[in-house]
């Protein structure tokens, strides 16, 4: 067994888990944060993408023990109270989902790419950056539109703040 301490969505948590526990299992089963999805079990689909120390990673391809000492953000940690994160709001506005199963991973991947690249993103960049996220409904068009809109809005917010 491993004792781990980490910060999840701004809250400090400590737990004792089996060494083989995947980070996604810990988030879903111990913390009840079921917004992080398990889609494929083969590390390909990206439904489980979260931010660990600010970088998008697949929570199904990391042990909980590896995350000891890290800061984790899941889909549940994006909104501020009732106010959706700009990427969440854009997915709603542009209907960036069909069945919704891949949506948490898509949104977390979008937050990561916007944070990392900054500025308004073009369609080609977004499609390339989404290589690790699969939508089985094939609803990519509106997902890309939503990310494009969110990146432009967030770039505007950054400019306004400066």
């Amino acid at each position, binding site marked *: 067994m*491993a004792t781990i301490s980490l910060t999840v969505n701004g809250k400090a948590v400590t737990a004792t888990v*089996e*060494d*083989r526990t*995947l980070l996604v299992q810990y988030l879903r089963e111990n913390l009840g944060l079921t917004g992080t999805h398990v889609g494929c*079990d*083969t*590390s*390909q689909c*990206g439904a489980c*993408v979260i931010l660990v120390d600010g*970088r*998008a*990673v*697949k929570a*199904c*391809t*990391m*042990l909980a*023990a*590896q995350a*000891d000492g890290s800061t984790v953000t899941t889909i549940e940690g994006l909104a501020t109270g009732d106010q959706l994160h700009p990427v969440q709001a854009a997915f709603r506005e542009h209907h960036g989902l069909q069945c919704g199963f891949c949506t948490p991973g898509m949104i977390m*991947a979008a937050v*990561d*790419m916007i944070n990392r690249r900054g500025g308004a993103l073009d369609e080609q960049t977004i499609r390339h*950056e989404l*290589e*690790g*996220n699969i939508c089985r409904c094939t609803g990519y068009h509106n997902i890309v539109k939503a990310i494009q809109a969110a990146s432009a809005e967030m770039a505007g917010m950054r400019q306004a703040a400066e």
Partner: protein
Amino acid sequence: MYQTTYHRPSTVQEAASLLASAEDVKLLAGGQTLIPTMKQRLAAPANLIDLGRIAELKGITVSGGTVTIGAGTTHAEVHTSADVKAAIPALAKLAGGIGDPHVRHLGTIGGSVANNDPAADYPSAVLGLGATVVTTKREIPADDFFAGMFTTALEEDEIIVRFVFPVPRKAAYAKFANPASRYAMTGVFVAVTGDGVRVAVTGAGSDGVFRWMDAEAALASDLSPSALDGLSLDPSGMLSDIHGDAAYRANLVKVMAKRALAALG
């Protein structure tokens, strides 16, 4: 996943002594291959030694005509490094084409090269550039390192610490990626060095990465794509699977080598 015992050393020395003393052990670098393999129960090591928090395995330095990359440096770090982009842009480009962004945030150069997947990108750069693999025990030239599919010269209790890449005059990497997995169906790394031209091929050979010596000889006097026109590879040494048979891959090597040469500029 079967039960395992997780260890997190904080120095290379501590990792090496754990590795020497533990039974049935695997080193965990970025985990982007090992963890999926354990999830599928295709690997079930009793002990895992996590190299992810060892500071001395990380970082990139450029000096005296070489680029030194710590084994624990992630693909994303190599891809975005201004130093790598300036010294060996082909290497930065290669790193940015591995897997997807999430994989690149965790996967490491040391993990990739130690695993020596026949379709991985990095082995072609290590062999193509004639890098030196520095381990906890010795320095291994790339030409002596790769020993067949998923096999290397590494001993059981040996850990890769860093890679020393000589800066080439110019280099290019051309990859035909499997559209689903992004692994190389064929990837060709061409480097022009002071000692001649090196052509390393990944994704195609049934023994893993290899140097295409006939191409190197042809390019010695004429560094243009057309220098390869009269050459062909023997399909009997090529991988054959549902994505492409041996004859297809043998042809693809030549096509991708020509594209790499065209990209040399």
